[in-house]
């Protein structure tokens, strides 16, 4: 089973819920992998403090030109939908940051002058913490394309284990890559107009992908009722709420795991566990 913890808006408490849920389930004997797919800003390791076990680099494929075969016909340039190739009479340029690694140029080259080479854009780190497997995807600083690192991270987690995926914020390609194929998406939101607006977008994204959705409201006492009303209208199960707790905020600020620091988080985790055992597909 794969559970994705997502939210449209950033900073709502995704990592709090994802790290706590993974740890809580692992303590109950479930083989769990916490998967940090927020590869631009991965934070789960700051709370789980994993012992490093290993790491590998994440490559993408970029076209490479065999100068002895290239006739500068520029068919590759006209084929590329992303303007990643520029062919001039005597030389050529490849813009790696624009390339989508689709392979269309290689297939189109009549001279077979193009092949693909690997370029590394991120790192996958594996660690262990309290019987929990921790898998973290990290995009290299300066790289633009998070999606291939997210896909590699999610795909590397062993399928026989329960996987809790900590997703990036937003509703575009990065968020889609991290929730695609999940058995359940738990959206973490907050009861403000920002939270509501971005929750709606995240729900639409999950509906478009045909995914099962549930919600958690964080800082439930610092806002209004509109988020609850929206969840009722959409028939989305509310798995629990957390109130704003300065002690918890301070503990998290220092890198403590929320589930160890707060009884309210522990009761949220047991509500989520109840839902997983009774209701989930």
């Amino acid at each position, binding site marked *: 089973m794969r559970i994705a913890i997502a939210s*449209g*808006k*950033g*900073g*709502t408490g995704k*990592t709090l819920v994802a790290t706590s849920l993974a740890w809580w389930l692992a303590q109950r004997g479930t083989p769990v992998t916490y998967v940090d797919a927020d590869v*631009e*800003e991965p*934070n789960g390791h*700051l*709370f789980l403090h994993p012992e490093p076990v290993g790491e590998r680099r994440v490559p993408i494929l970029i076209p490479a030109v065999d100068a002895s075969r290239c006739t500068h016909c520029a068919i590759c340039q006209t*084929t590329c*939908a*992303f303007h990643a190739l520029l062919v001039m009479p005597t030389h050529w340029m490849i813009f790696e940051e624009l390339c*989508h*690694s*689709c*392979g*269309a140029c290689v*297939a189109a080259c009549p001279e077979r002058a193009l092949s693909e080479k690997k370029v590394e854009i991120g790192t996958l780190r594996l660690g262990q913490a309290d019987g929990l497997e921790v898998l973290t995807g990290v*995009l290299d*600083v*300066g*790289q*633009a*394309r*998070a999606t291939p690192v997210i896909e590699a991270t999610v795909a590397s987690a062993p399928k026989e284990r329960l996987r809790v995926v900590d997703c*990036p*914020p*937003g*509703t*575009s*390609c*990065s968020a*889609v890559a991290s929730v*695609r194929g999940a058995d359940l998406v738990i959206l973490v939101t*907050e*009861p*403000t*107009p*920002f939270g509501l*607006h*971005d929750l709606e*977008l995240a729900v*639409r*994204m999950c509906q*478009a*992908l045909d995914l099962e959705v549930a919600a958690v409201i964080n*800082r439930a006492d*610092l*806002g*209004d009722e509109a988020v609850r009303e929206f969840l009722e209208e959409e028939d989305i199960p509310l798995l629990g709420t957390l109130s*704003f707790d*300065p002690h918890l*905020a*301070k503990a*998290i*600020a*220092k*890198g403590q795991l929320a589930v160890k620091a707060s009884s309210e988080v522990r009761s949220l985790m047991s509500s989520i566990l109840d839902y997983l055992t009774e209701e989930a597909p």
Partner: protein
Amino acid sequence: MRQLAVFSGKGGTGKTTLVATFTHLAGQAVAVDCDVDAANLAILLPGEDEPPRDFFAGEKAVIAADKCIGCGRCARVCRFDAIERAARTYKVLPLFCEGCHACDPACPTDAITYTPNKAGVWTRRRREGGWLIHAELGVAQDNSGKLVAHVREQARLTAREAGIDLILVDGPPGIGCPAHAAMGDLSAALIVTEPSVSGEHDLIRFLDTAARFEVHPAVVVNKWDLSPELTERIEAMCAERGVPVLGRVPFDAAVPRLLTQGRLPLEAPASPETISALRAIWERFSALD
């Protein structure tokens, strides 16, 4: 024309609230919301929207069912898992198609064509003191960087047309493609962080990314009193890297309540400390070059 941008690395640190507050304090300005995945600035900057305009980027493949013989060659060349079998033919899953044109040369019956892809909508909002340019990316779109570039261009055109020489940019979170698109052509940039291990971690990654784009941001610590210890650690790290710290904003439970009513934290019940911190930070930020 001066362009000032606010970023955060980590989401939810108070970026949009700061931009709306600065826009109000600036008097005349064009604000532009570059967090096109989850655009919230419009909630805090009221006004009247012009009719929304479509933003097209890229294409999506379409397989004509009457021409498809079900050979599956297209699905085998597609690297985005965007083509799947449907009974005896194949169909494109538009959410995953990147419009790369790898599939159509593989099709023996020329069954594949392309349609332009509507990636989102954008609009201009006329408001007291200027304009807001905002956009909404379509569900599951992969063109956020392009839409960011588009709304920034519209902000420039609007500012020129209106004779306004200040643009305030609400940046996207993260350090990837949308953030890169928001980093060009800036007069000054500010990063809002919070005093936590994650705020600190994400700030460092953002500073490293900004350095590659030759952007030299200043820093503000929001909700600083939630951990004075982490605030000091972050400020010391900034000092070591030569990054100016423009101020600290206290945690104030009245702020989310004000925002819920669509009001800015420049009035009671926001505390006098919050209000004066925000005003002082704007003074310093607007004076940066």
